[in-house]
């Protein structure tokens, strides 16, 4: 068992689709919350093999995409400071701010480094004692434990030149906001596998209890997704609503308590701004008192006033209200080489996925 090919088996996929066809009687709309799901759904052509009355809509699950413009602009302003090294995950490079992007700033000679693990930020800070290393702490609950560990280590090692631009997000409050907004009909959620590996099922219970909607924590291989969809359909047809786990080989009900504890050693829940969804209570993390010195927002720095392209529909796309195909800029003024909005940038962004695979 190598955990890849087994979950891409054509014969099993065909049987699963037959099961879906047999079970499903009513037209439904399911939201895949996570960008990795969106990519997988397109990459394997899953929409095309589902019955027509089952519609999949993409949700706000791409960390780069939901990062508000003002945070991108702040990162760009910081990169222009002579004594700053920006440390970032690669995805952030091409995201357009109001007038520039980190990629363009790097071409201008700013010191911007791409890393793959939060702990590399410590290494870069140590290598440049005369500079301030600023790590762009972007991501959902999957990434937060590693960011928390970077903070803990920096403190332990008395590293005084590592700072964090904290724009982390928590998924469940955003789903609550989507359900409250009622802008889009959602009959069930395909919940993110990686985020749930950390947080488990508890934080999602309100989806079933308060809103009466089913949700299934689902893996990312094509058979995972087909089985997740089937489990959702089964709940809907049986008029049940509960939080189930399809991705059993990784996700436990109580998540990963060690990782959760790390997060809350350094952060506490706090309000956060989401592109498209606005400010949502408890949907992010703020620094605990003893870690506030690492918050880059304490810097006295001038940031240009943020503005977004008036025709960009990223906000609506992130809420599942509009499809990229409804955007006038899509494929005309907005493409992966010259993205107008962040959803065209990230490999997990809905617009980018539509552009690449549709």
């Amino acid at each position, binding site marked *: 068992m190598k955990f*890849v090919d087994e979950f891409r088996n054509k014969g099993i996929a065909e049987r699963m689709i037959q099961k879906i066809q047999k079970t499903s009687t009513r037209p439904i709309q399911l939201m895949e919350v996570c960008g990795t799901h969106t990519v997988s759904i*397109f990459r394997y052509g899953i929409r095309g093999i589902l019955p027509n009355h089952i519609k999949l809509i993409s949700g706000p699950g791409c960390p780069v995409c939901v990062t508000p413009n003002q945070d991108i602009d702040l990162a760009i302003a910081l990169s222009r400071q002579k004594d700053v090294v920006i440390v970032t*995950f690669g995805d952030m490079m091409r995201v357009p701010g109001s007038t520039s992007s980190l990629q363009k700033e790097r071409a201008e000679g700013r010191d911007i480094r791409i890393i793959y693990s939060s702990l590399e930020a410590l290494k870069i800070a140590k290598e440049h004692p005369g500079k301030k290393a600023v790590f762009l702490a972007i991501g*959902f609950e999957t990434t937060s434990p590693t960011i928390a560990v970077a903070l803990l280590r920096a403190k332990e090692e008395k590293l005084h030149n590592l700072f964090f631009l904290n724009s982390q997000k928590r998924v469940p409050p955003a789903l609550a906001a989507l359900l409250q907004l009622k802008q889009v009909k959602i009959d069930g959620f395909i919940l993110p596998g990686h985020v749930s590996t950390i947080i488990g099922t508890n934080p999602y219970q309100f989806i079933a209890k308060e809103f009466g909607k089913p949700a299934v924590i689902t893996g*990312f291989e094509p058979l995972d997704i087909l089985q997740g969809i089937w489990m959702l359909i089964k709940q809907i047809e049986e008029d049940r609503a509960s939080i189930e786990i399809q991705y059993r080989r990784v996700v436990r009900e109580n998540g990963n308590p060690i990782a959760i504890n790390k997060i809350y050693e350094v952060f506490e829940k706090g309000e956060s701004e989401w592109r498209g969804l606005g400010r949502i209570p408890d949907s992010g993390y703020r620094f605990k008192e003893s870690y506030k010195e690492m918050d880059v927002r304490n810097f006295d720095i001038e940031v240009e006033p943020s503005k977004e392209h008036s025709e960009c529909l990223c906000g609506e796309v992130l809420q599942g209200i509009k499809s990229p195909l409804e955007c006038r800029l899509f494929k005309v003024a907005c493409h992966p080489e010259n993205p107008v909005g962040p959803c065209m940038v990230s490999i997990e962004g809905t617009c980018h996925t539509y552009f*690449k695979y*549709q």
Partner: protein
Amino acid sequence: MSEDKILLAHGSGGKLSHDLIKQIFLPQFNNPFLEPLDDSAKIINRHGSIAFTTDSYVVNPLFFPGGDIGKLAICGTVNDLSMIGATPFYLSLSLIVEEGFSINLLKQLVSSIHEIAEQAGVKIVTGDTKVVEHGAADQLFINTAGIGWIRPGINLSGINARPGDKILLSGYIGDHEMAVLSQREGFKFQGDLKSDCAPLNDLVEKMLNACSFIRCMRDPTRGGLATTLNEITRMSNVGMVIEEEKIPVRESVKGICELLGLDPLYLANEGKLIAISPPDDADQILEVMKSHPLATSAEIIGRVTEENPKRVILHTLIGGHRILDMLTGGQYPRIC
């Protein structure tokens, strides 16, 4: 072009690289030899056909599992000549070295160059070395150019693909870029990750001996298999249907791709080729390929179609289908 500065993505081999060629170079230099934009230029005069090509190598790190920048510089140019059916003979070798570079490492690289040139049967007949100030280059850059002869009756070009043709791939994709990436970023992945860097001239010769009517060959380097297939559809104004289950990808490459959110179809290769052949000859060519040590895992991965010109349609593993586009921007690993 809306950007007014060169970005790293302009060198990725994907769409921005193409825009650069089409918008900046071609308008100034265009001539019948350059225009096909094959891997080498084919120069026909009264003595016969000569193939001529050049390429620069800037890989970081200089040494990686399965090869080094020297081996790459020889294989790359040998392969570019081979892809238009030429037998490579003479190469030039130019080095741009950063002040302070280790003489010992230079010796190692030169010895590696010698070894692979011997193996490929090519001679290095001219060369140049420049040393630049510390910081003006990253350790060492190499440029090689090469000349080869094309024997009569061989006509390989990206413009030759016709509906009905079969598409052959010589083996596992993604090995090179994954080996370099994991070395560069210090990923400690266990397993058999090794660059596939190899000279393909012997394989090409045997394939052409088996069937001189092969229409086109390409080595899917930067931009990967997906980008190269798209280039051919554009040059020949045809469509393609590719069967994903036929594309060989190693378990280790697949696994790391899943981890990082990368797609193996866009990863660079340095010892693989794609061949387009008339439908009736494909099986025979495949047999010859499979008996060669560099192509034991070769497969027929799809066919050329009249429908969907300039598009590659991928039949996915689970029976769906999607458009397989060129590489756009660079491939960056996802955040979570």
